[in-house]
């Protein structure tokens, strides 16, 4: 199959970017969007031109490294699937596909399709970890946790931090990301010890770097791990609990 690609090219953060049009032929419908970009780069390098820069690592939907805006939608047309797993069969042969970086004022473009997602890391650094001495592993069954409860916590822990939620949000909010992290940690016994401070610090860092949530629901629509909108309600709950927590 043959596709016309409109790809965002940008030298660095300081310069303004533009779209460049390429034609890629002899594509297989089973190829992923990233494999198509690999094919394009082979062509470009062969022709002695500058290749299109993009990020990727595991290419099996677990690292959160890839993330492009494809035809105006973070990750691509198929909902809940990372860019690396989106297949070309979704496009009709001969159509034009527009590929841009994840779009948000909080994600400055570093080069072509690569953006700086470190504001998300700042939120994690503010409290997305266990800072209390957790000691050695407890004896089996010394600390009982309901199985379904653990499964639910793991549903929120599934977030791979790709940043598609931020790019999808018309408000540039990171509430789904922060909500997923805060919720998963507050649901488990050891990390929940720090839930009050965690909610306060992570929300403060989130608000310094991202916009407010207006419940558009776009984030949950693109999330490759299908983190539900409940994560945002849970974030508000944790923040409110932290606010009203007794401080003697």
């Amino acid at each position, binding site marked *: 199959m043959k596709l016309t690609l409109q790809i965002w090219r940008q030298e660095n953060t300081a310069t303004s970017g533009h779209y460049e049009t390429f034609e890629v032929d002899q594509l297989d419908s089973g190829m992923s969007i990233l494999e198509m970009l690999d094919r394009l780069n082979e062509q470009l390098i062969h022709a002695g031109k500058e290749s299109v820069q993009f990020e990727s690592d595991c290419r099996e939907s677990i690292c959160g490294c890839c993330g492009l805006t494809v035809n*105006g*939608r*973070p990750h691509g047309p198929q909902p809940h699937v990372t860019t690396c797993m989106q297949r070309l069969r979704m496009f009709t042969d001969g159509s034009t596909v527009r590929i841009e970086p994840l*779009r*948000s*004022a*909080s994600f400055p473009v570093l080069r072509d399709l690569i953006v*700086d997602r*470190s*504001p998300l*890391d*700042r939120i994690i*650094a*503010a409290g997305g970890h266990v800072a209390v001495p957790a000691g050695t592993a407890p004896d089996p069954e010394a600390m009982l946790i309901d199985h379904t409860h653990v499964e639910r916590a793991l549903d929120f822990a599934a977030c791979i931090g790709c940043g598609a939620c931020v790019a*999808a*949000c*018309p*408000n*540039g*909010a990171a509430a789904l990301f922060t909500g997923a992290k805060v919720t998963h940690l507050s649901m488990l016994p050891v990390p929940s010890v720090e839930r009050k401070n965690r909610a306060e610090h992570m*929300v*403060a*860092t989130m*608000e*310094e*770097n*991202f*916009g*407010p*949530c*207006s*419940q*558009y*629901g*776009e984030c949950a*629509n*693109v999330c490759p791990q299908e983190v539900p*909108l*409940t994560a*945002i*309600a*849970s*974030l*508000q*709950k*944790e*923040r*409110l*609990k932290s606010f009203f927590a007794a401080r003697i």
Partner: protein
Amino acid sequence: MSTTASDAGTTPPGVSVPELPPAFQVSKREQKTLPNWALKVAMAITGTFGALFLVLHLVGNLKVYTGAEHFNDYALWLRHVGEPLIPANGVIWILRCALALCLLVHVTCGVLIWTRGRAARGKFPAKRNNGFRSVGATLMPFTGCALLVFIVFHILDLTLGTQPIATADFQDHTETAAFAYQNLVADFSRPWAAAIYLVMMALLSVHLAHGLFTVVSDLGAVGKRLRAILIAIGGLLALAILLGNASIPLAVQLGVLK
């Protein structure tokens, strides 16, 4: 700017601490005096208060179907409720002040959230792939502004009876009598006024449908059943306010209410 060990004063003299990589630097962007999460809670509470008032208003409005006398008696009772403990017009003025305060807080928070959202999105166009939810959320500032204008219009029209918005034969209430029914029928007999009210009720219900959905999350309802019940209540409330209120100008236009 980064927060290094030297900032904390723990580094021995002569030792230089390397800059932390950007991911681990504590952001030094100014902390917001009014945090977004608190703005959202304030909007949720004031919005819920407004929605509850609308339910009360709807119940009052529907009394129009019980006849002119009953409706006018209800209008008069509103001015004398709580007497003699509360002076005449006391309850109505307490309610008006509370609503005005809620409106002020709601609008201020809304403007802040909207402007902060635009700034955080940057210069890129918003994506809308979420159907009705997207439309409702996107329209919030516009339905909100329209409602603000409508509130002023509605007060001038049916409370103060200011010309030229109100009808020429608007009768203000007296100590012992109210003419709410006559004023209402005269008002909605004008097709353009009836049309304005119908359009505004549609915009109000769109605003309520998204607003009440947002309240559920902003006040931290997490449980599956609780969320489902609250979201259903919000949706039904928006629908009831639309159907109940819109039926009145229609009834006048169709000659059911005279």
